[in-house]
């Protein structure tokens, strides 16, 4: 559910590429905001299906957005209560964690600081309370990819600015370190979770956080014309986010994330019209 989105679309492509029968569902199939959505979802589910819940109105910035997202989750819960699935995977977010200097792991308490995080955290609680099937909750860190429609601060925005010949403006000197995940890696992890019928919470993060300045340099370096990178006076204290990825290593010891340099290069190629590999 949510197959037309940036994340959902990537997951569907990957699953089909590895031979998994994927049924893409979007709003045109089931509008989760409608009262009969739960019923319609239940009618689609078979007992041996795995259900991937990716749909979200994101970013969630206001109360209306929050309530609409929760309406969607309620519909999914209603559907899964009516008709069982063999396995459920919920794509959540690392927004459930508080902004803090402490290294984040799956044992870090969910303490969201904004409505987007509240939305995802509430969604997790609602699903946990409704679902009897094995439930995997995946919390990706910051995602990047050529098809990302969002223009959040980071590689996506930096690339678009550079492509438009504009300067890349950094918050402060771009010192904050964040963990950026290539969209194809999210799909790959979802595929592994399906294969193993994984359950529990897993952060999707590389374990290697990088400063925004470094990312800006890497993105700018892909363009033939010089790209100006401009720091700004710092307004907020520097807060890094690092992930302890031990749980992911334990779950999938042989899985390797796309190195950031390589991922940015692929995104650059795709955005220039190159085919996806």
């Amino acid at each position, binding site marked *: 559910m949510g197959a037309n989105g940036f994340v959902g679309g990537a997951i569907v492509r990957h699953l089909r590429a590895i031979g998994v029968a994927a049924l893409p569902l979007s709003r045109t199939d089931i509008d989760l905001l409608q009262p009969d959505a739960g019923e319609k979802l239940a009618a689609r589910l078979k007992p041996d299906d795995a259900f991937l819940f990716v749909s979200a109105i994101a970013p969630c910035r206001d109360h209306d957005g929050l309530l609409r997202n929760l309406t969607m989750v309620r519909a999914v819960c209603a559907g899964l209560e009516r008709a069982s699935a063999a396995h459920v995977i919920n794509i959540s977010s690392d927004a459930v964690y508080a902004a803090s200097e402490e290294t984040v792991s799956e044992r870090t308490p969910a303490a969201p600081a904004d409505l987007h995080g509240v939305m995802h955290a509430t969604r997790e609680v609602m699903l946990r309370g409704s679902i009897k099937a094995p439930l995997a909750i995946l919390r990706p860190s910051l995602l990047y990819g050529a098809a990302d429609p969002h223009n959040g601060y980071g590689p996506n925005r930096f690339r678009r600015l550079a492509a438009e010949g504009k300067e890349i403006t950094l918050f402060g000197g771009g010192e904050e370190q964040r963990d950026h995940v290539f969209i194809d890696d999210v799909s790959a992890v979802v595929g592994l979770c399906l294969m193993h019928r994984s359950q529990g919470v897993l952060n999707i993060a590389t374990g290697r956080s990088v400063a925004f300045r470094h990312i800006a340099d890497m993105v700018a370096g892909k363009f033939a014309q010089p790209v100006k990178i401009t720091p700004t006076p710092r307004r907020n204290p520097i807060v890094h986010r690092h992930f*302890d990825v031990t749980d992911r290593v*334990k779950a999938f010891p042989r899985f390797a994330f796309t190195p950031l340099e390589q991922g940015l290069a692929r995104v650059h190629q795709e955005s220039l019209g190159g085919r996806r590999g």
Partner: protein
Amino acid sequence: MSARIGFAGLTHLGICSATATAAHGFQTVGYDADVGLVANLAAGEPPILEPGLRETMAANTHLLRFTADISHLRDCDVIYLALDVRTDDAGNSDLAPLRELIGKVAGVARPQASIVILSQVPPGFTRAYAAADARFIYQVETLIFGRAMERALRPERFIVGCAEPAAQLPAPYAALLRAFGCPILPMRFESAELAKISINMCLVASVGVANTMAELCEGVGADWSEIVPALKLDARIGPKAYLAPGLGIAGGNLERDLSTVVRLSGEHGTDCGIVKAWIANSTHRRDWALRRLAETVLEKPGELVIGVLGLAYKEDTASTKNSPSVALIRNLRPVPLQAYDPAVKVDSAWHPQISGAASALAACDGAAAVVIMTPWREFRDLDPATMARRMSGKVLIDPYRVLDPAACRAAGLAYHTLGRPAEAA
């Protein structure tokens, strides 16, 4: 005539303590209901590995006997309850076997005898018995796996919990303690029981500092081994401070005491945040080798084999209780492993593709990476160049710095150890 001393419960604690008591010239009888165990001990075949134990037993056979007949404790002036208390994976104690044994011993002991609880018990345990039976005393045990005989024969002090700390200890018991020639510290029951736990909390705190700062060293480019001598020369820290970084707390005893403190804090509403942080840090450090393997060989495509040297949770013991090595092995299920330990046999329940190697070098054969998970002395004799020739890869993960980093580097190995940044091959 010197006192006759009995030990009930012939686990590691009982065997080592009884042997040390006999070595100090006391007629000592060790009791256990396990007939087979008693027979083996009588034949000089203890079921545990401890340096010096067999030799000390052999040298004192005229003073030390073992029996499966509890009535043989009746003549004893002092009877120790010396059963090691088992813990579950969460560090929670199972006191039921001890309580059962206490009931039996109390039933056979003479009215004038001292019944000394040496087993690891929580605060309040001994007073619950002493309130109805004045024979009960508590004594802190301070054995260390792998150094138990040294600790039992030459204790640093005796910490004794009793009903009246200011009063004289029963004469036979006092004579026994004096024979060891170390300070004797009587105190109330709960103080002694908590003293035992407090000792371990101090050790855990020290290890927590070492682990935390060693990890930081790995990130900032420092070397923790260069810092430690400077710390030990600080009188406030001391030359014997526990500052070696490790792979988390293991063995069972420290984990039990951490669990006890958290439980007691919950019951009494006291703050134990720092204790929980130590536990979290221990869990984090346990997987250090796994994370290094992930960064170096696991994330690379292709088949590979990993060599694991050491299975016991520490050297000079056969115990795998909470062993970091076994934890690592369980987390490497998709990867074939070759493992060697001088005292522990491979258990196929740990891993579907693990084989036991005949030697440490055999465990290196064809390995993409070798991990030295227990710092056995014999591993120090390994030649890095020979290891490198037999391996297929170049990664050597040596958390305890068993081998010389410079020799490993010269052999072309990518050397990884706790407390300093990783080196490329």
